[in-house]
Structures are given as C-alpha cells and as structure tokens.
C-alpha cells in the first residue's frame, strides 16, 4: 500500500481542472485514467500513431486541446497514471488500482472522483443489432480512429449532443440522413428564456443547428425511432412522430440506413462513490442516482469529493468549474492554501456555477426522459443485453416476487452479466417502478461490488510499484 495526498480518478474536464488547480495550489497530485491519454470522453485524444490525421475540430475541441496542453506543462509535478483503472474503494479512502504492470492500493488523504458518465439508451426492438450504437461511440470512432462507423447514418434520441455528433459525422464524410429529437419544438420554446442566461452556450447550439441546415440534414423535433430491423445488422429503422410523453402517434415510416446512432442522455458513473458508501439521491433530470455533496463537492464521506458528470450530468463547462472548486477545496482542506485565498477564488466560481445551472436545468427539462420510451420495448425486446433477458421475462420475474432489485437479479439473472447492470438497470428500475406503483427512487439501485470495470486474475498477481513522490514545498 502506498500513501498519496490527493488522488483524482478520471482525466476528463473535471479531473484535469482539479489536477491543474490542486497542483498549482501546492498539493501533490496523482491523476488516474483508464485511457492512454487525458481528455476523458469529450476531449478524447487520438493515439499517437494516428495523431497525424486531419480530424474536424470545433470550438469545444480547441478548448479541450488547451486543457490538455496545460496539464502537459505540469507533467513533472503531477503523477500521471494512464491505462490504470480503479477497481475498488476500501475504507478509509483506499483505492485499489490496476494497470498492465500490476495492482496497488493507494491510500489518499483526499480523493476527487471525476469518472464521468455513459450514454443511456432506452431499449426498443432491434436495439441489439450490429450497426446500432451510441452517438458518443460513433463520435469517438471518427475523432480518435478516423474511421466512419457507417455511410448512411440516422441519429436519434434526445439531447443537444445529437446535433454535435450529426455535424461531426457529416464533416467526416458520412451521409447523415436525419436527426430525430424526441423533445418537441414547443418544449424548447417553453424554456427558451432560461437558455439566454448563458449566451455563449446558446451560440454553440445555434452554430450546430446552422451546420445541419447548411448540410441539408433534416432535424425532426418530436420524432423517435420505434424499432430497428435487419438480419445480421441494421438495414432499416422505423420512425414516427411522438407526443410530449414520448409515445408514438400517427403514421410510422421506414428508412433504409446502415447505422443508427441513438442516445437519450447520460448516466453518471457513480460506482466508486457507492462503494465508498456515500449518501446518494435520485435526480432523474441529471441522470439518476448521484452522491449528495456540499458546496465544495464533498460527499458524505470525509475527504471524498465528486466533480463533473460523474456527480450529475451537466456538461463539460460545468465539469471544469466543479473540478476547479474541488481541487481548491482539497488543497484548502490539506492546508496548502489559506482561508482568504480559498474564499477569494471560490466565490466567483460558485457564481458562475449558479448562472450555468439556470441554463443547464432548462436543457435538462427540454431533454428529459419521457415515460413513453419504456413502452417502445415489446414483450420480446431484450432488456438485459448481457444475459439476453426480455421484457416479458423481467415482468414475469417481478410478478414472481422479484419486486426488489436483489431478488429480481437472482430470479431472472438481469444485471448479472459483465456490464454489471449499467446498460439495463435504468430500464429495469422503471419496469419495477411501473409494475409496483413505486417511484424509481424507491426501487433503489444495484449494489456495487468490486471489481469496477475489467479486472483479470493475472492483474492481481503482481504488485505495481510506483515511484516515490518528490516532496512539494
């Protein structure tokens, strides 16, 4: 076991901001990420061998490069552990990590969890066909591998992210046949005034809309994909208009495509916070279960903070500010910056966050998950992808007495596969809630047990040795 001052899990915008801030505030920082390079998902970098490719960049991308560059300049002062995953949290503040060189327990005085989020896809017939993927998955295939996942692509689901991906896939040479947004235009108009609270982001949104228009890519508000068809992979998608609850109405039509990018927002990755026994709360608008935090993003577990999408989905700009606050707070708590300095820096950041929250909460409402989506899944639609459990089998399991998560798992095996319930649980929880007349919050969450992510036996056979830290003064 080794000791460290501050360990930051995740090198996306929140983690990078926390690392740079804490480092400059005089703290010893260890930054860990599963990937080979910093950037997280939104600022994901290409591997060195592919870095020479010309990949379309935008405003967001440039900002990402700036952050990455800034962290690079601090590389002699930060312990950077790439290709390293944190597979468990043990009391008190001990993180179990593994890389391909072995495993180790890191005991930290302060921890910042910045593990980000993953995309939620509501199950529907045909969603398991090859060629159906998340918008983020398609985006990173283009941005980091410079490979188009298909040539005739439909983008669907909900959220401003769909516009970004559509524009990027088009710029990369794909034929984007359209974008279907489940929210209706009137939902957007209702919240329009709040969106003006942060003009810069509103401009960004407008920019993407213009790009789509220039490219002649139709954007259909109040529409969704009701099913995907094909034998070996997707060949068609069936689409329809929908009402405010996400229920299809009117005539359906079919469109021939080879790729469907579908995503309904993001779910925070809270496994480590849950393993640490942080008090959690259910907030559907920002992705589901999140740890309860105070103004400095400290959870109910002393010395453990959560920043960025991993604590509630709010986008990259919010993530960066939260990471900065968390980094400052950790430094303050360990005494490397005094009260006055801390407060002077904290106040304006808190103010920025308050302004952003108005914008974000409008977006959250516009793009909220509609209840009707659940009913796109037919009785024979696969809900648990890993174990191939259908909606009917889950409902039978609930009727059979699986009215709580553990019993349902044992009876149906839903959630017992390698993804540990990440893909299916939001839908399963809603099915239980529906049938039992409970709220989704009352249904509770899957219990998180180690290992988080992928861990092989061989990973535990060698101890990872980490260099002794240079003293910071």
């Amino acid at each position, binding site marked *: 076991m080794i000791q460290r001052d501050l360990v930051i899990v995740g090198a996306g915008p929140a983690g990078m901001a926390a690392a740079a801030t804490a480092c400059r505030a005089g703290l010893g920082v260890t930054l860990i990420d599963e990937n080979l390079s910093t950037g997280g998902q939104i600022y994901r970098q290409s591997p060195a061998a592919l870095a020479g490719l010309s990949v379309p960049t935008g405003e967001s991308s440039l900002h990402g490069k700036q952050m990455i560059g800034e962290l690079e300049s601090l590389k002699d002062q930060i312990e950077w552990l790439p290709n390293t995953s944190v597979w468990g949290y043990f009391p008190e503040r001990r993180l179990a990590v593994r890389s391909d060189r072995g495993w180790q327990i890191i005991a930290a005085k302060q921890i910042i969890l910045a593990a980000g989020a993953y995309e939620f896809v509501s199950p529907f017939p045909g969603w398991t066909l090859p060629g159906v993927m998340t918008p983020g998955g398609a985006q990173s*295939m283009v941005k980091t591998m410079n*490979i188009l996942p298909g040539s005739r692509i439909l983008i669907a689901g909900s959220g401003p992210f769909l516009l970004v991906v559509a524009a990027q896939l088009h710029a990369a040479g794909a*034929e984007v*046949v359209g974008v279907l947004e489940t929210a209706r235009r009137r939902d957007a108009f209702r919240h329009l005034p709040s969106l003006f609270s942060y003009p810069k982001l509103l401009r960004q949104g*407008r920019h993407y809309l213009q790009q789509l228009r220039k490219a002649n890519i*139709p*954007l259909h508000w109040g529409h969704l994909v009701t099913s995907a068809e094909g034998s070996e992979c997707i060949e068609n998608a069936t689409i329809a208009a929908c009402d405010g609850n996400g229920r299809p109405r009117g005539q359906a039509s079919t469109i021939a*495509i080879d790729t469907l990018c579908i995503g309904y927002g993001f779910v925070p990755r809270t496994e480590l916070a849950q393993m640490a026994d942080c008090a959690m709360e259910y907030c559907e608008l920002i992705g589901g279960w999140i740890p309860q935090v105070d103004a400095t993003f400290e959870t109910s577990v002393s010395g453990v903070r959560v920043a960025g999408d991993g604590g509630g989905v709010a986008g990259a700009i919010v993530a960066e500010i939260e990471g900065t606050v968390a980094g400052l707070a950790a430094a303050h708590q360990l005494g490397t910056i005094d009260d006055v300095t801390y407060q002077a820096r904290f106040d304006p950041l808190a103010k920025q966050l308050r302004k952003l929250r108005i914008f974000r909460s409008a977006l959250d409402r516009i793009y909220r998950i509609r209840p009707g989506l659940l009913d796109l899944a037919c009785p024979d639609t696969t809900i648990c992808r890993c174990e*191939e459990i259908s909606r009917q089998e889950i409902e039978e399991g609930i009727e059979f007495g699986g009215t709580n998560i553990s019993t349902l798992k044992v009876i149906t095996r839903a959630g017992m596969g390698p993804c540990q319930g990440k*893909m299916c649980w939001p839908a399963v929880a809603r099915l239980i809630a529906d049938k039992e007349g409970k709220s989704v919050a009352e249904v509770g969450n899957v219990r998180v047990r180690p290992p988080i992510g992928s861990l092989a036996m061989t990973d535990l056979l060698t101890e990872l040795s980490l260099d002794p830290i240079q003293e910071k003064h």
Partner: protein
Amino acid sequence: MDATNHSSAKDESHPSVNADGVKTGSGPRRIEGNRGMRVDFTFDGKSIEAFEGETIAAALLASGGRTLRQTERKGEPRGLFCNMGICFECLVEVNGNPNQRACQYQVTDGLEIKSQPADSLERYE
C-alpha cells in the same frame, strides 16, 4: 435558439429524408489521411489490415466486419455499441483469451482473434 424544422411545414407525419431511400454507401470505412505503421492480424482465420494505434473494434469495423459475436442463449449477432469499454458487447477472443473488449484492445502484429459463437460454452451433460 433557432429551432426551424427542415421538412416542409405542412407534412409532419412523413418526415422527409435526404436520400432516395435506396441503400447506398459503402458501409464503415477509413477516412483519408496518414496512418501509422501497417499491422496485420487474423480474425477467424481471415487476414485483416490495420494500422498502429487502432483498436481491434475500429480495424474490424473498417474492414466491414460489424458482427463481432453471437450471443450465448439465442445466437443473436452483436457488435460495437458504446465504444468506451463499459457495455461489454464487443467481446472477442484474442490469442486464446476469451471475453476481451475489442474497443479497448490496441492492435499489434500477428494477433489471432476469433469471434465468440453461440454455444461456445459447453454445459455439463
């Protein structure tokens, strides 16, 4: 925010789409550009061209291979889904080790990769 719908305003129930409705296009492909060193591996015995830095999933996708495996229970085709290592759909066998995530595994020369078919798990008789 300008939220204009691009389809003709009068026809909400039949959204217009760009193409002629006939399946065109060449499927997944590499975008033009300079890549790193060439790397070759086999997938189910077939030789696949790839480039240093690519993941197995990326290389297979570029070669037109969307279906990576068949599911255990129902023999359904599965392929890449999240591309970030959390959905465990893109599982392949690499050099004899099963259940490796193709989207996380970087290609190297000479890898022997096999798809995982249905019934690959024998049961007790």
